Protein backbone atom coordinates (compact mmCIF):
# COMPACT_ATOMS: atom_id res chain seq x y z
CA UNK A 1 0.00 0.00 0.00
CA UNK A 2 2.78 2.39 0.85
CA UNK A 3 4.37 1.52 -2.49
CA UNK A 4 1.18 2.71 -4.17
CA UNK A 5 1.35 5.84 -2.06
CA UNK A 6 4.93 6.49 -3.17
CA UNK A 7 3.90 5.88 -6.79
CA UNK A 8 1.09 8.43 -6.48
CA UNK A 9 3.37 10.91 -4.71
CA UNK A 10 5.76 10.81 -7.69
CA UNK A 11 2.93 11.39 -10.18
CA UNK A 12 1.53 14.18 -8.05
CA UNK A 13 4.92 15.82 -7.69
CA UNK A 14 5.61 15.74 -11.43
CA UNK A 15 2.18 17.12 -12.30
CA UNK A 16 2.68 19.92 -9.79
CA UNK A 17 6.08 20.68 -11.29
CA UNK A 18 4.58 20.73 -14.78
CA UNK A 19 1.95 23.22 -13.65
CA UNK A 20 4.65 25.43 -12.13
CA UNK A 21 6.78 25.40 -15.29
CA UNK A 22 4.13 25.61 -17.93
CA UNK A 23 6.45 25.62 -20.93
CA UNK A 24 6.90 21.90 -20.44
CA UNK A 25 3.24 21.35 -21.35
CA UNK A 26 3.08 24.06 -23.95
CA UNK A 27 6.21 23.23 -25.98
CA UNK A 28 5.32 19.82 -27.44
CA UNK A 29 1.73 20.91 -27.97
CA UNK A 30 2.77 24.07 -29.76
CA UNK A 31 5.19 22.10 -31.90
CA UNK A 32 2.44 19.61 -32.80
CA UNK A 33 -0.01 22.33 -33.79
CA UNK A 34 2.60 24.34 -35.71
CA UNK A 35 3.87 21.44 -37.80
CA UNK A 36 0.38 20.35 -38.74
CA UNK A 37 -0.80 23.84 -39.65
CA UNK A 38 2.25 24.34 -41.87
CA UNK A 39 1.44 21.34 -44.06
CA UNK A 40 -1.61 22.85 -45.85
CA UNK A 41 0.43 25.99 -46.50
CA UNK A 42 3.29 24.00 -47.95
CA UNK A 43 1.17 21.71 -50.09
CA UNK A 44 -1.11 24.39 -51.46
CA UNK A 45 -4.65 24.06 -52.72
CA UNK A 46 -4.79 20.29 -53.05
CA UNK A 47 -7.43 19.16 -50.53
CA UNK A 48 -7.45 15.56 -51.75
CA UNK A 49 -3.75 15.12 -51.37
CA UNK A 50 -3.92 16.66 -47.90
CA UNK A 51 -6.82 14.42 -46.95
CA UNK A 52 -4.92 11.37 -48.12
CA UNK A 53 -1.80 12.10 -46.12
CA UNK A 54 -3.58 13.51 -43.03
CA UNK A 55 -3.16 10.36 -40.87
CA UNK A 56 0.52 10.28 -41.64
CA UNK A 57 0.98 14.00 -40.92
CA UNK A 58 -0.79 13.77 -37.58
CA UNK A 59 1.10 10.68 -36.49
CA UNK A 60 4.52 11.85 -37.60
CA UNK A 61 3.96 15.19 -35.85
CA UNK A 62 2.80 13.42 -32.69
CA UNK A 63 5.88 11.23 -32.80
CA UNK A 64 8.25 14.17 -33.23
CA UNK A 65 6.44 16.13 -30.51
CA UNK A 66 6.84 13.18 -28.18
CA UNK A 67 10.54 12.95 -29.00
CA UNK A 68 11.01 16.65 -28.44
CA UNK A 69 9.52 16.38 -24.97
CA UNK A 70 11.52 13.33 -23.92
CA UNK A 71 14.54 15.18 -22.62
CA UNK A 72 12.50 16.87 -19.90
CA UNK A 73 11.56 13.47 -18.46
CA UNK A 74 14.64 13.01 -16.25
CA UNK A 75 16.79 16.08 -16.97
CA UNK A 76 15.83 18.33 -14.08
CA UNK A 77 15.78 15.44 -11.58
CA UNK A 78 19.21 14.41 -12.77
CA UNK A 79 20.56 17.95 -12.47
CA UNK A 80 19.31 18.69 -8.97
CA UNK A 81 19.95 15.30 -7.39
CA UNK A 82 16.30 14.28 -6.95
CA UNK A 83 16.95 11.30 -9.16
CA UNK A 84 19.51 9.94 -6.69
CA UNK A 85 16.93 10.22 -3.95
CA UNK A 86 14.33 8.39 -6.01
CA UNK A 87 16.78 5.58 -6.75
CA UNK A 88 17.74 5.32 -3.06
CA UNK A 89 14.14 4.80 -2.03
CA UNK A 90 13.47 1.38 -0.50
CA UNK A 91 10.67 0.93 -3.02
CA UNK A 92 11.42 -0.65 -6.42
CA UNK A 93 12.83 2.04 -8.69
CA UNK A 94 11.04 0.61 -11.72
CA UNK A 95 7.64 1.36 -10.17
CA UNK A 96 8.66 4.89 -9.20
CA UNK A 97 10.08 5.43 -12.68
CA UNK A 98 6.80 4.19 -14.16
CA UNK A 99 5.09 6.89 -12.08
CA UNK A 100 7.34 9.49 -13.65
CA UNK A 101 6.63 8.17 -17.15
CA UNK A 102 2.87 8.23 -16.55
CA UNK A 103 3.05 11.80 -15.28
CA UNK A 104 5.13 12.73 -18.31
CA UNK A 105 2.55 11.22 -20.64
CA UNK A 106 -0.27 13.05 -18.85
CA UNK A 107 1.61 16.30 -19.37
CA UNK A 108 2.90 15.85 -22.90
CA UNK A 109 0.86 13.06 -24.53
CA UNK A 110 -2.66 13.70 -23.35
CA UNK A 111 -2.84 17.31 -24.64
CA UNK A 112 -2.00 16.00 -28.13
CA UNK A 113 -5.00 13.71 -27.89
CA UNK A 114 -7.23 16.64 -27.05
CA UNK A 115 -6.19 18.87 -29.95
CA UNK A 116 -5.82 16.07 -32.52
CA UNK A 117 -9.51 15.94 -33.57
CA UNK A 118 -9.45 19.66 -34.22
CA UNK A 119 -6.38 19.38 -36.40
CA UNK A 120 -7.82 16.34 -38.17
CA UNK A 121 -10.86 18.38 -39.19
CA UNK A 122 -8.51 21.11 -40.30
CA UNK A 123 -6.73 18.65 -42.61
CA UNK A 124 -10.07 17.44 -43.96
CA UNK A 125 -9.85 13.94 -42.54
CA UNK A 126 -13.09 11.94 -42.98
CA UNK A 127 -15.26 11.87 -39.86
CA UNK A 128 -15.41 8.07 -39.81
CA UNK A 129 -11.69 7.79 -39.09
CA UNK A 130 -11.76 10.27 -36.21
CA UNK A 131 -12.59 7.64 -33.58
CA UNK A 132 -9.80 5.38 -34.80
CA UNK A 133 -7.34 8.27 -34.82
CA UNK A 134 -8.13 8.97 -31.17
CA UNK A 135 -7.86 5.30 -30.24
CA UNK A 136 -4.49 4.94 -31.96
CA UNK A 137 -3.20 8.09 -30.25
CA UNK A 138 -4.51 6.87 -26.90
CA UNK A 139 -2.75 3.54 -27.35
CA UNK A 140 0.31 4.80 -29.19
CA UNK A 141 1.49 7.92 -27.36
CA UNK A 142 2.01 6.11 -24.00
CA UNK A 143 4.22 3.65 -25.91
CA UNK A 144 6.26 6.58 -27.21
CA UNK A 145 6.78 7.81 -23.63
CA UNK A 146 7.60 4.35 -22.30
CA UNK A 147 10.10 3.43 -25.00
CA UNK A 148 11.52 6.93 -25.05
CA UNK A 149 12.15 6.72 -21.30
CA UNK A 150 14.68 3.93 -21.86
CA UNK A 151 16.56 6.09 -24.34
CA UNK A 152 16.53 9.18 -22.10
CA UNK A 153 17.62 7.16 -19.10
CA UNK A 154 20.64 5.96 -21.10
CA UNK A 155 21.58 9.41 -22.37
CA UNK A 156 20.67 11.70 -19.46
CA UNK A 157 24.22 11.56 -18.12
CA UNK A 158 25.68 12.73 -21.44
CA UNK A 159 25.86 16.45 -22.03
CA UNK A 160 24.90 16.26 -25.69
CA UNK A 161 22.75 13.19 -25.76
CA UNK A 162 20.10 14.58 -28.12
CA UNK A 163 21.40 13.05 -31.32
CA UNK A 164 22.12 9.65 -29.77
CA UNK A 165 18.68 9.71 -28.20
CA UNK A 166 16.98 10.12 -31.57
CA UNK A 167 19.07 7.36 -33.08
CA UNK A 168 18.27 5.03 -30.20
CA UNK A 169 14.60 5.73 -29.97
CA UNK A 170 13.36 6.40 -33.51
CA UNK A 171 13.77 2.84 -34.84
CA UNK A 172 11.75 1.58 -31.88
CA UNK A 173 8.99 4.09 -32.68
CA UNK A 174 8.61 2.85 -36.24
CA UNK A 175 6.25 -0.11 -35.53
CA UNK A 176 3.87 2.18 -33.64
CA UNK A 177 3.91 4.65 -36.52
CA UNK A 178 3.27 1.96 -39.12
CA UNK A 179 0.36 0.28 -37.37
CA UNK A 180 -1.25 3.47 -36.12
CA UNK A 181 -0.94 5.32 -39.43
CA UNK A 182 -2.23 2.30 -41.31
CA UNK A 183 -5.22 1.90 -38.96
CA UNK A 184 -6.32 5.50 -39.43
CA UNK A 185 -5.95 5.24 -43.20
CA UNK A 186 -7.94 2.00 -43.40
CA UNK A 187 -10.67 3.46 -41.21
CA UNK A 188 -10.93 6.34 -43.66
CA UNK A 189 -11.84 3.91 -46.42
CA UNK A 190 -14.29 2.07 -44.19
CA UNK A 191 -12.21 -1.07 -43.71
CA UNK A 192 -11.97 -3.01 -40.42
CA UNK A 193 -8.97 -2.07 -38.26
CA UNK A 194 -9.24 -4.63 -35.45
CA UNK A 195 -5.91 -6.21 -36.29
CA UNK A 196 -3.93 -2.98 -36.08
CA UNK A 197 -5.70 -1.92 -32.88
CA UNK A 198 -4.99 -5.32 -31.31
CA UNK A 199 -1.35 -5.06 -32.23
CA UNK A 200 -1.17 -1.55 -30.74
CA UNK A 201 -2.81 -2.83 -27.55
CA UNK A 202 -0.27 -5.60 -27.27
CA UNK A 203 2.63 -3.21 -27.92
CA UNK A 204 1.28 -0.97 -25.17
CA UNK A 205 0.89 -3.84 -22.69
CA UNK A 206 4.36 -5.15 -23.50
CA UNK A 207 6.06 -1.82 -23.12
CA UNK A 208 4.11 -1.02 -19.95
CA UNK A 209 5.45 -4.18 -18.38
CA UNK A 210 8.91 -4.30 -19.91
CA UNK A 211 10.05 -0.68 -20.28
CA UNK A 212 10.31 0.40 -16.60
CA UNK A 213 13.02 -2.18 -15.76
CA UNK A 214 15.61 -1.18 -18.32
CA UNK A 215 14.77 2.46 -17.62
CA UNK A 216 15.48 2.07 -13.91
CA UNK A 217 18.65 0.10 -14.61
CA UNK A 218 19.85 2.69 -17.12
CA UNK A 219 19.17 5.51 -14.65
CA UNK A 220 21.31 3.73 -12.05
CA UNK A 221 24.10 3.62 -14.60
CA UNK A 222 23.64 7.27 -15.49
CA UNK A 223 23.86 8.63 -11.93
CA UNK A 224 27.11 6.76 -11.40
Amino acid sequence: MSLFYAFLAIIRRDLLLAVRRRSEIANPLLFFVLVITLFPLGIGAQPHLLQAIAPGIIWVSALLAAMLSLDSLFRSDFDDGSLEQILLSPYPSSILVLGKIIAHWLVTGLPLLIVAPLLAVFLGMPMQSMGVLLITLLLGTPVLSLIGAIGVALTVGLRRGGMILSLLVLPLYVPVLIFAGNAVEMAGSGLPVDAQINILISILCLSLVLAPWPTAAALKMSVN
Partner: protein
Amino acid sequence: MHNNSTSRLQVTDLSCVRDDRVLFEELCFELYSGQVLLLEGENGSGKTSLLRILCGFREPDAGQVLWCGNAINDSQYYEDMAYVGHLNGVKKELTALENLKVSLALGKAGQYSIAQALAKVQLADFDDALVQTLSAGQQRRLSLARLLITHNSLWILDEPFTSLDIKGITLIESLMTEHCNKGGMIVLTSHHDIALPSVDVQRILLS
Protein backbone atom coordinates in the same frame (compact mmCIF):
# COMPACT_ATOMS: atom_id res chain seq x y z
CA MET B 1 14.78 4.63 14.48
CA HIS B 2 16.85 1.48 14.59
CA ASN B 3 18.17 1.10 18.05
CA ASN B 4 19.62 -2.18 17.18
CA SER B 5 23.12 -2.63 18.48
CA THR B 6 23.80 -5.35 15.91
CA SER B 7 23.51 -2.99 12.94
CA ARG B 8 26.88 -2.48 11.41
CA LEU B 9 28.47 -1.40 8.18
CA GLN B 10 31.37 -3.54 7.10
CA VAL B 11 33.70 -2.71 4.26
CA THR B 12 36.34 -5.21 3.22
CA ASP B 13 39.17 -4.89 0.70
CA LEU B 14 37.42 -2.15 -1.22
CA SER B 15 39.16 -0.72 -4.27
CA CYS B 16 38.14 1.98 -6.65
CA VAL B 17 39.81 2.67 -9.98
CA ARG B 18 38.84 5.67 -12.00
CA ASP B 19 40.26 6.29 -15.47
CA ASP B 20 43.16 3.90 -14.80
CA ARG B 21 44.00 5.77 -11.63
CA VAL B 22 43.74 3.84 -8.37
CA LEU B 23 41.85 6.01 -5.90
CA PHE B 24 42.06 3.57 -3.02
CA GLU B 25 42.90 -0.08 -2.58
CA GLU B 26 42.15 -2.71 0.04
CA LEU B 27 40.22 -0.32 2.19
CA CYS B 28 38.70 -2.00 5.25
CA PHE B 29 36.63 -0.57 8.07
CA GLU B 30 33.73 -1.39 10.31
CA LEU B 31 31.21 1.01 11.69
CA TYR B 32 28.90 0.25 14.60
CA SER B 33 25.90 1.98 16.12
CA GLY B 34 26.72 5.31 17.64
CA GLN B 35 29.89 5.84 15.62
CA VAL B 36 30.89 8.46 13.10
CA LEU B 37 33.31 7.86 10.26
CA LEU B 38 34.98 10.95 8.91
CA LEU B 39 36.66 10.61 5.52
CA GLU B 40 39.50 13.00 4.98
CA GLY B 41 41.71 13.65 2.02
CA GLU B 42 42.52 16.11 -0.70
CA ASN B 43 40.20 16.97 -3.55
CA GLY B 44 40.07 14.06 -5.96
CA SER B 45 41.28 11.54 -3.41
CA GLY B 46 38.15 9.43 -3.83
CA LYS B 47 36.00 10.50 -0.89
CA THR B 48 32.89 11.05 -2.96
CA SER B 49 33.56 7.90 -4.98
CA LEU B 50 33.69 5.94 -1.73
CA LEU B 51 30.40 7.45 -0.58
CA ARG B 52 28.80 6.63 -3.91
CA ILE B 53 29.97 3.04 -3.60
CA LEU B 54 28.43 2.94 -0.14
CA CYS B 55 25.17 4.22 -1.67
CA GLY B 56 25.25 1.51 -4.31
CA PHE B 57 25.46 3.99 -7.21
CA ARG B 58 28.88 2.72 -8.17
CA GLU B 59 30.14 -0.83 -8.24
CA PRO B 60 33.39 -1.27 -6.34
CA ASP B 61 36.24 -2.55 -8.51
CA ALA B 62 37.05 -5.06 -5.81
CA GLY B 63 35.87 -5.89 -2.33
CA GLN B 64 32.46 -5.66 -0.77
CA VAL B 65 30.21 -3.59 1.40
CA LEU B 66 28.04 -5.41 3.91
CA TRP B 67 25.16 -4.04 5.95
CA CYS B 68 24.37 -6.20 9.01
CA GLY B 69 26.13 -9.04 7.23
CA ASN B 70 24.15 -8.75 3.98
CA ALA B 71 25.17 -7.29 0.65
CA ILE B 72 23.83 -3.76 0.18
CA ASN B 73 21.83 -4.40 -2.96
CA ASP B 74 19.23 -5.79 -0.66
CA SER B 75 16.29 -3.50 0.04
CA GLN B 76 16.66 -3.60 3.83
CA TYR B 77 19.77 -1.47 3.41
CA TYR B 78 17.88 1.22 1.52
CA GLU B 79 15.32 1.35 4.32
CA ASP B 80 18.09 1.97 6.82
CA MET B 81 20.20 4.53 5.01
CA ALA B 82 19.79 8.11 3.93
CA TYR B 83 22.08 10.10 1.68
CA VAL B 84 22.65 13.81 1.26
CA GLY B 85 25.10 14.45 -1.53
CA HIS B 86 26.68 17.42 -3.26
CA LEU B 87 23.31 18.08 -4.87
CA ASN B 88 20.52 18.91 -2.49
CA GLY B 89 17.91 16.76 -4.21
CA VAL B 90 15.14 19.29 -3.63
CA LYS B 91 12.95 20.70 -6.39
CA LYS B 92 13.25 24.45 -6.75
CA GLU B 93 9.70 24.89 -8.03
CA LEU B 94 8.14 23.18 -5.02
CA THR B 95 7.75 24.53 -1.51
CA ALA B 96 9.79 23.21 1.40
CA LEU B 97 6.75 21.36 2.68
CA GLU B 98 5.95 19.74 -0.69
CA ASN B 99 9.54 18.61 -1.04
CA LEU B 100 9.55 16.94 2.35
CA LYS B 101 6.18 15.30 1.69
CA VAL B 102 7.59 13.64 -1.40
CA SER B 103 10.68 12.49 0.51
CA LEU B 104 8.44 11.07 3.21
CA ALA B 105 6.32 9.21 0.67
CA LEU B 106 9.46 7.71 -0.88
CA GLY B 107 10.68 6.33 2.44
CA LYS B 108 9.30 5.03 5.69
CA ALA B 109 8.10 7.50 8.31
CA GLY B 110 10.78 8.26 10.87
CA GLN B 111 11.07 9.81 14.22
CA TYR B 112 9.95 13.35 13.54
CA SER B 113 6.98 14.78 11.70
CA ILE B 114 7.60 17.21 8.86
CA ALA B 115 6.67 20.20 11.04
CA GLN B 116 9.02 19.07 13.81
CA ALA B 117 11.85 18.48 11.36
CA LEU B 118 11.41 21.93 9.82
CA ALA B 119 11.47 23.44 13.30
CA LYS B 120 14.63 21.48 14.10
CA VAL B 121 16.49 22.87 11.11
CA GLN B 122 15.04 26.32 11.83
CA LEU B 123 12.93 26.55 8.71
CA ALA B 124 9.56 26.45 10.45
CA ASP B 125 8.49 29.78 8.96
CA PHE B 126 9.50 28.79 5.46
CA ASP B 127 7.30 25.74 4.88
CA ASP B 128 5.24 27.52 2.23
CA ALA B 129 8.16 29.24 0.54
CA LEU B 130 9.27 28.00 -2.86
CA VAL B 131 12.71 26.49 -2.53
CA GLN B 132 14.11 28.82 -5.21
CA THR B 133 13.43 31.74 -2.89
CA LEU B 134 15.49 30.18 -0.10
CA SER B 135 19.19 30.91 0.33
CA ALA B 136 21.80 28.22 -0.41
CA GLY B 137 22.28 27.55 3.30
CA GLN B 138 18.55 27.22 3.87
CA GLN B 139 18.27 24.80 0.95
CA ARG B 140 21.07 22.78 2.50
CA ARG B 141 19.26 22.65 5.82
CA LEU B 142 16.08 21.62 4.04
CA SER B 143 17.85 18.70 2.40
CA LEU B 144 19.26 17.71 5.79
CA ALA B 145 15.73 17.85 7.26
CA ARG B 146 15.02 14.86 5.05
CA LEU B 147 17.27 12.80 7.34
CA LEU B 148 14.99 13.53 10.27
CA ILE B 149 11.62 12.67 8.75
CA THR B 150 12.47 9.27 7.30
CA HIS B 151 13.34 6.07 9.08
CA ASN B 152 17.08 5.50 8.90
CA SER B 153 20.05 4.55 10.99
CA LEU B 154 22.93 5.21 8.62
CA TRP B 155 23.50 8.71 7.34
CA ILE B 156 25.82 9.17 4.39
CA LEU B 157 26.70 12.83 4.04
CA ASP B 158 28.88 14.37 1.39
CA GLU B 159 30.18 17.73 2.61
CA PRO B 160 27.09 18.43 4.73
CA PHE B 161 28.42 21.79 5.89
CA THR B 162 28.72 23.35 2.44
CA SER B 163 27.18 26.84 2.38
CA LEU B 164 26.11 26.68 6.03
CA ASP B 165 27.01 29.49 8.41
CA ILE B 166 28.56 28.90 11.84
CA LYS B 167 25.16 28.63 13.49
CA GLY B 168 24.04 26.16 10.84
CA ILE B 169 27.15 24.04 11.35
CA THR B 170 26.59 23.92 15.11
CA LEU B 171 22.98 22.99 14.48
CA ILE B 172 23.88 20.10 12.19
CA GLU B 173 26.57 18.94 14.59
CA SER B 174 24.02 18.79 17.38
CA LEU B 175 21.64 16.82 15.15
CA MET B 176 24.48 14.43 14.31
CA THR B 177 25.33 13.98 18.00
CA GLU B 178 21.68 13.31 18.79
CA HIS B 179 21.48 10.76 15.97
CA CYS B 180 24.56 8.90 17.21
CA ASN B 181 23.38 8.92 20.80
CA LYS B 182 20.22 7.20 19.63
CA GLY B 183 22.27 4.43 18.06
CA GLY B 184 22.57 5.79 14.55
CA MET B 185 25.76 5.96 12.55
CA ILE B 186 27.17 8.49 10.12
CA VAL B 187 29.68 8.38 7.31
CA LEU B 188 30.68 11.82 6.15
CA THR B 189 33.27 13.81 4.28
CA SER B 190 34.06 17.30 5.39
CA HIS B 191 36.67 19.94 4.86
CA HIS B 192 35.56 21.62 8.06
CA ASP B 193 36.71 20.37 11.39
CA ILE B 194 33.86 18.69 13.07
CA ALA B 195 33.24 19.09 16.76
CA LEU B 196 31.45 16.03 18.10
CA PRO B 197 32.89 15.73 21.61
CA SER B 198 30.58 13.03 22.94
CA VAL B 199 30.74 10.77 19.91
CA ASP B 200 33.17 8.07 18.87
CA VAL B 201 34.69 9.45 15.65
CA GLN B 202 36.83 7.26 13.40
CA ARG B 203 38.93 8.96 10.78
CA ILE B 204 40.18 7.61 7.49
CA LEU B 205 42.67 9.57 5.45
CA LEU B 206 42.46 8.85 1.74
CA SER B 207 45.51 9.86 -0.24
